[in-house]
């Protein structure tokens, strides 16, 4: 690590932070994936987590996932709220016995020294009603700031996890703000250069935050979104129904992944509709339930696929 040029160091640049984490988890033996190419609300939605957390096969992966939370947009005016941000996601199945130490070492790798910083594991149970998933764990605090979520998955897509996976989610912008000592997310140094060559987070994303906030709250086409939700739901069910095969002595599913993509689409359409304020409290519950039904059916299909089943 000493060989790193200054602009690549995790405390100097946003990308340096990402690269350091990738390098650290690659060294551990994770497959380093690229972001999933769909709009999702959190890294957990990536099939590399949601689906791969199911079934008995060993799975260690890490990746950055751009996450969209339409409701959190603030037109670029809030120093730390964004409708689009990056999560760094690590999934380790089964959860290794030293997972806490592995996590703490990853913090050390990005420059958080446990001899001067107060690192704490504070109870935070995680539940995703849309994914039919829950787990126990903590939010990890560094000097009073939540920098990660740490969860032992107990159930995902309605299926009991056997074995249990450990999930680590780093909020990259927050962590970067912390190690760079910056109070406003847009002031983050993105590329680690100075002077004319310096690119900030604001240079990359401020305009997008403004445009998408406008879109999410004011203009997103609700007729289209309702239609998209309906279509995605229908397509998901159709692909699921079409994917089942009765072969020999076991049932098999051949299209769990494409079906799950439609579940992700339905979920994102719902998030946008929710941000537009066109879903009432009671309807909200029923939409969440509909997405969960899709997620559960996808989970059921996945455990009957090559990657999801026992042998």
């Amino acid at each position, binding site marked *: 690590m000493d060989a790193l040029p200054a602009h690549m160091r995790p405390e100097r640049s946003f990308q340096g932070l990402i690269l350091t984490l990738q390098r650290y988890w690659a060294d551990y033996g994770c497959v380093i994936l690229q972001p999933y190419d769909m709009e999702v609300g959190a890294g957990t939605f990536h099939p590399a987590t949601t689906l791969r957390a199911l079934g008995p096969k060993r799975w260690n992966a890490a990746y950055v996932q751009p996450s969209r939370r339409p409701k959190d947009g603030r037109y670029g005016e809030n120093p730390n709220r964004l409708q689009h941000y990056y999560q760094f996601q690590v999934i380790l199945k089964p959860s290794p016995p030293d997972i806490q130490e592995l996590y703490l070492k990853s913090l050390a790798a990005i420059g958080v020294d446990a001899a001067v910083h107060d690192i704490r*594991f504070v109870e935070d149970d995680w539940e995703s009603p849309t994914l039919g998933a829950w*787990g126990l764990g903590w939010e990890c605090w560094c000097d009073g700031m939540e920098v990660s979520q740490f969860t032992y998955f107990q159930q995902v897509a309605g299926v009991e996890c056997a*074995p249990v996976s450990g999930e680590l989610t780093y909020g990259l912008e927050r962590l970067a703000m912390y190690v760079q000592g910056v109070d406003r997310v847009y002031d983050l140094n993105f590329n680690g250069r100075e002077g004319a060559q310096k690119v900030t987070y604001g240079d990359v994303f401020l305009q997008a935050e403004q445009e998408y906030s406008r879109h999410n709250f004011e203009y997103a086409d609700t007729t289209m979104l309702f239609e998209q939700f309906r279509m995605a739901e229908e397509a998901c069910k159709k692909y699921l129904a079409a994917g089942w095969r009765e072969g020999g002595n076991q049932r098999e599913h051949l299209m769990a992944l494409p079906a799950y993509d439609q579940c992700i689409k339905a979920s994102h359409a719902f998030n946008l509709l929710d941000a537009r304020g066109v879903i009432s409290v009671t309807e909200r519950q029923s939409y969440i339930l509909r997405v969960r039904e899709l997620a559960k059916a996808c989970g059921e299909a996945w455990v009957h696929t090559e990657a999801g089943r026992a042998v």
Partner: protein
Amino acid sequence: MPDLLLELFSEEIPARMQAKAADDLRRMVTDKLVAEGLVYEGAKAFATPRRLALTVHGIPVRQPDLKEERRGPRVGGAEPAIQGFLKATGLSSIDEAKIQSDKKGDFYIALIEKPGRPAIEVLADILPVIIRTFPWPKSMRWGERSAKSGSLSWVRPLHAITATFGLETEEPDVVKFSIDGIETGQTTYGHRFMAPAEISVRRFADYDAKLLAAKVVLDPERRKDAILTDARQLAFAQGFELVEDQNLLDEVAGLVEWPVVLMGSFDEDFLSIPDEVIRATIRNNQKCFVVRNPKTGKLASKFILTANIEATDGGKAIIAGNERVIRARLSDAKFFYETDLKTKLEERLPKFDHIVFHEKLGTQGERIRRIERLAAEIAPLVGADVEKARRAARLAKADLLTEVVGEFPELQGLMGKYYALAKGEDATVAAACEDHYKPQGPADRVPTDPVSVSVALADKIDTLVGFWAIDEKPTGSKDPFALRRAALGVIRLITENALRLSILKAAWSAMSGLPSKVVTVDAAKLPTDLLAFFADRLKVQLREQGARHDLVDAVFALGGQDDLLMVVRRVEALGKFLDSDDGKNLLAGTKRASNILSIEEKKDKRTFDGTPDAALYRLDEEKALAKAIDQAKSEAGAAVAKENFAAAMSAMAKLRPPVDAFFDKVRVNDDDPKVRENRLKLLNEIRAATRAVADFSKIQD
């Protein structure tokens, strides 16, 4: 006698679960020991974020031997019965059994001796069961073993179990067992960051001492003391005073093994936010204490945090980090507060028409309009200005839609007051926004301003009548809508402000505000049914204050008693009266009259109502009693009409000598049936006369 040391070392246990877990561990282990005949001398349990620990001292080395005689079949009984007996008792032949003779014949008796087992073996049996069945509020599986069913569940992954048993003077033994691949031993670990190395421990004394050396304060009480002392000291040194907070202290002590208290600052500008909002922000989100200026009582721009390490830089980085987070949080809070101030409370009201209060009781908007109408009706009865009461009721819930209350629900009401004052609302109207929720419990303050009182009553009565109308009454321990608390609130508002209010009328009025389709119960019965609920709550409340609850029954048994203040006054006067000799004797006389009456009523299968015939009085005592009853009735009646219950009781007291004399001299069951009937009617009159103040038959001796 030997001691047990048990430690369950895990990943971070939620702070809120630690105290109960330590208690459960102690209870479960010691209960089981006693059940196994191992009576111990003492036990103590501790919790830190990473461990539950238990020490039990003075456990006998072995269980006592048990001797038991078991009676078997008759001598010469059927062979299967004898074989069964041998099998059940473990005897190898029937010759080993004794023979005992009694009236029924000769029977085999087996003498079973069960030698006591060594305590360490008993422990090795009971501890794994306790660990596997430990009652965590939520538990989880983890790791490789979670692939198989039946794997251990614990609050967070369990890493090591220390279990030793032995005398203080000797090297103890390990209580050997294993759970899910974790073997018991003598190895634990110190502080996660400051002393992570393995520690070998023998018994509690060296365990406690070695942990302390490894930067772990085992006893939560010691951690709390340390935090509190240091926090007070830090505040004092800067001329401030710690705002103490027991719940926060409990929580913070559950987040650290080695508390290090530090003080940070925030920008003075944030002090423009109300103190309560600053405190909620810093407390709820950052688990830090705030400090105040002891002279003004206002918050200072400082906070106190509790870190888990002695940092090598003396805590500079930790303070700086916490200051940055608190700055960001306070910026949010300030933004919320200032945003809220831009909108008048009144302008928020239309939104309530889209928010469901309860699926059967309609929207919040409808509920607010009901409360507004009811508050205006109650206002003149409690001396409040009708328009102000109406206005206060309209605005009282509006802060539920503000950003600050959305973020910190516990500030509901209070924020309404601030926002109302900021927009120039009348001070009593603003106060009602906060105070109409009160009293929230038996210890909470009862509002006294009439505007607050009328809205508080209207809010609670609407809630009660609403849930009564849809038949959602509290049952047993279930009271999801806190209706008992609402009723108690009404009782306290009425009695502590000495208000005159008919509960029945108020209930009718509240019900008339509900759409008729909402009411799913018999509407005619609702107000009296609700009144009975108030009677129950009043009884509970009076009992808690040490008064006799049977007196409440005696007063409510008169019927139509829906003026709670008068009920309480009657009960008080009655209580005092019954403490006097006159009262006790009159009660005895009345009871005697009732007893005789009920016997004779049963015998004759009739009642003895009606006025006695003066012509049939034979003895002076009868005439005297009849006269006294007439007098007591009219005096007590007049006193009750003036609500002077003490005077009514004094009037009743005058009945005592003639009643006593009557029972002394007069034989009720006279041979002449007409005289007998007349005397029974006279007894009935005693009962009737006392009903001017209460139904004496409901009073227990």
